[in-house]
């Protein structure tokens, strides 16, 4: 068995190189599988290409035949027209047990930029599906990827690796917003500014059902663009105080160099409301809202970027504490997988040996029956059962020895010896 992986990921390669080596669309992937099979028709291939990694898994049933690391890097180089020298030092190449363990770590998101993030398992699933569609998979990669998905599910169930959110926008909405409000579809969301952070936060809010979105920005065009993207409404920046009173959720991400909303301004706006709970996300640096606003009344919940970052870090640390547990599961599962594969490698020889010996016994029985035609059916059955038992007892020691040897790796020496001793040099 031969499994290889060449990985260009966020640990060793910058985004520019990853972009150059990416298989960014289904057409490219289809072309890649076609080109690979033209050169290596007997080897299996799965390409995993995401924004953080480009990984090529190649596999052969034979140990000493088929593809090598050089074949894979040459293929990448030719496909993307990028000289090998430009990326060879930024890729990770692993084989056998290490390659299997690497895939399991990737599928469990231990190797991800954000530890425990859930998207990677779907990306692995999708890569496997596309490989199947393009005839990239074979017996080995099928078992390998199915096993990887099972390990991923086990790690998610048995560890807290995926617990707690770790991005600022997801913590803001998922941890704090949902702790204050049970639903967002009846809430007014006011966005001050039109930055990237506002967009990310709105994505989460919209996924939670927020539909009444109001954007106020000094630059009206940017406000309208952002509002249009989320089916919201761009409002006049001068009407900000009125919206401060009406809004249930306020997301502020302006690039203002000074405090935008002072306590006095907020108190004045608040006086026009019924003091309903208001969730304020101040994602700007420097802050847009005076921190003293948090004390205006009991229904004001103000969070700045530091408070959110603190929660992100705490969740990140909690996940890190679970890595050891996950690694233990992965190590055990890698061991199990390797044993399974090694044992599979002995399958054809075992099958051939059984067939060979039973063929001999059948031949000898036919000769015996010709010499003793008076034997009736019960007598024949008794003789056949005896011969069967003898063959099985003789086969038992070599098969057990093969099974034991397969725990440590493909038992090449023993397989060779069996072929030489019993199968007369059959390949």
């Amino acid at each position, binding site marked *: 068995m031969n499994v290889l992986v060449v990985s260009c990921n966020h640990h060793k390669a910058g985004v520019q190189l990853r972009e150059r080596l990416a298989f960014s669309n289904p057409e490219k992937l289809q072309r890649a599988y076609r080109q690979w099979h033209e050169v290596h028709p007997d080897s299996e291939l799965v390409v995993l290409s995401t924004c953080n990694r480009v990984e090529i898994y190649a596999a052969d049933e034979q140990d000493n035949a088929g593809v090598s690391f050089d074949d894979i890097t040459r293929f990448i180089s030719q496909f993307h027209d990028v000289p090998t020298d430009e990326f060879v030092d930024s890729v990770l190449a692993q084989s056998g047990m290490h390659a299997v363990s690497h895939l399991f770590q990737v599928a469990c998101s231990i190797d991800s930029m954000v530890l425990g993030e859930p998207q990677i398992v779907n990306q692995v699933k999708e890569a496997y599906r596309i490989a199947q569609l393009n005839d990239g998979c074979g017996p080995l990669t099928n078992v390998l990827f199915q096993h990887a998905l099972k390990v991923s599910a086990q790690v998610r169930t048995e560890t807290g690796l995926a617990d707690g959110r770790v991005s600022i926008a997801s913590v803001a909405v998922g941890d704090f917003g949902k702790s*204050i409000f049970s639903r967002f579809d009846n809430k007014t969301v006011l966005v001050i500014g039109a930055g990237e952070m506002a967009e990310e936060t709105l994505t989460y809010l919209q996924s939670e059902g927020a539909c009444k979105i109001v954007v106020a920005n000094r630059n009206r065009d940017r406000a309208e663009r952002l509002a249009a993207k989320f089916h919201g409404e761009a409002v006049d920046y001068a009407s900000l105080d009125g919206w401060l009173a009406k809004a249930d959720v306020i997301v502020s991400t302006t690039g203002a160099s000074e405090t935008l909303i002072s306590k006095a301004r907020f108190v004045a706006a608040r006086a026009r409301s019924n003091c309903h709970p208001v969730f304020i996300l101040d994602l700007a640096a420097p802050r847009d809202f005076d921190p003293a606003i948090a004390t205006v009344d009991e*229904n004001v919940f103000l969070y700045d970027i530091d408070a959110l970052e603190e929660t992100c870090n705490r969740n990140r640390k909690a996940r890190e504490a679970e890595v050891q547990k996950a690694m233990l599961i992965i190590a055990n599962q890698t061991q199990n997988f390797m044993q399974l594969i090694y044992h599979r490698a002995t399958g054809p020889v075992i099958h051939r040996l059984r067939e060979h010996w039973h063929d001999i016994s059948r031949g000898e029985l036919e000769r015996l029956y010709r010499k003793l035609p008076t034997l009736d059916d019960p007598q024949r059955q008794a003789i056949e059962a005896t011969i069967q038992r003898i063959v099985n007892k003789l086969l038992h020691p070599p098969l057990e020895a093969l099974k034991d040897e397969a725990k440590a790796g493909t038992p090449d020496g023993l397989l060779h010896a069996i072929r030489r001793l019993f199968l007369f040099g059959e390949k």
Partner: protein
Amino acid sequence: MGFLAQVQIYCFLMSYAVSLIGEVWLLLRRQSPLARVVIIAFTAAGFLAHTAYLVTRSQTAGLPPLLSSQQDWLLVLAWIGVLLYLVLLVTHRQWAHGVFLLPAILMLVLIAIFVSPQATGKLDHSAVGRLGMFHAASLVLGIAAVGGAAISGLMYLLHHQRLRSRSVWLQKLTLPSLENLTVVNRWMVVFSVPCLTIGLVTGFILIFWSRSSNSGNSIRWTDPTIITTLVVWGAMILVLIRVLAGSHQTGKSVAQLSLLSAGFLLTTVLGPLILSGSGNLSTFHSGSSVPKTSHVDKDPADADPGRKGVPQ
């Protein structure tokens, strides 16, 4: 049915105590499927034992549990709490309801051990018996709602504290949103007032009946249970007025008032129950002022196997 008679209060008390330990364990270590299984198994087992105990008691007294004794209606109150907890355990398992509900349930069961298991005055007339049942059911539901308001209020205050001060020690407490807790808290207050009112009105009708029928089973207007229930009713009326009238009141203020009302409940209703159970206070509801018409004259320890060995 023989083995059902063997069920004692301590059986389900211990089951709920184990469930509470499981809940605390879950709070400290979130990933523990075993703890969850233990909680569900012990709560369900306790609930079955609890139900069997109430059924047996009801059969022994010849009355529904709500009418048989103060101990029994406290156990009915706890039973309602366990039922609610089991439902929430299945429907909203991510929330830490148990650490709030189970202590309240355990407290009710513990108090039940110390209150009188003696039957209250017998209500001979069938129509009056039905009114008595209605009276007890309304009061139990009203008191359950006050308890519910207090628990949701406590959850609100802790959650509010967690969100405002970002207390690290509260981070592991997974609770419903403040919006949900506010809704539950207010509805509990709104629900408790009519229940308590109906309970009181029907109670007054029963007093009039007992006095006018000259049955020898008359209830005093100054019965401690009546006075204390009136105090709780008054407190809940004040909270309701605050909920309905205050346009600028916050969820926090309602939660605080709910907790205050529960404090009233503890000191004014449950306190006299314990006192009457220990024989220091005479009240019709404990059966201690019931004259000869009382149909249960046996020793309390005989009536309730769970009370054996408990100091009187």
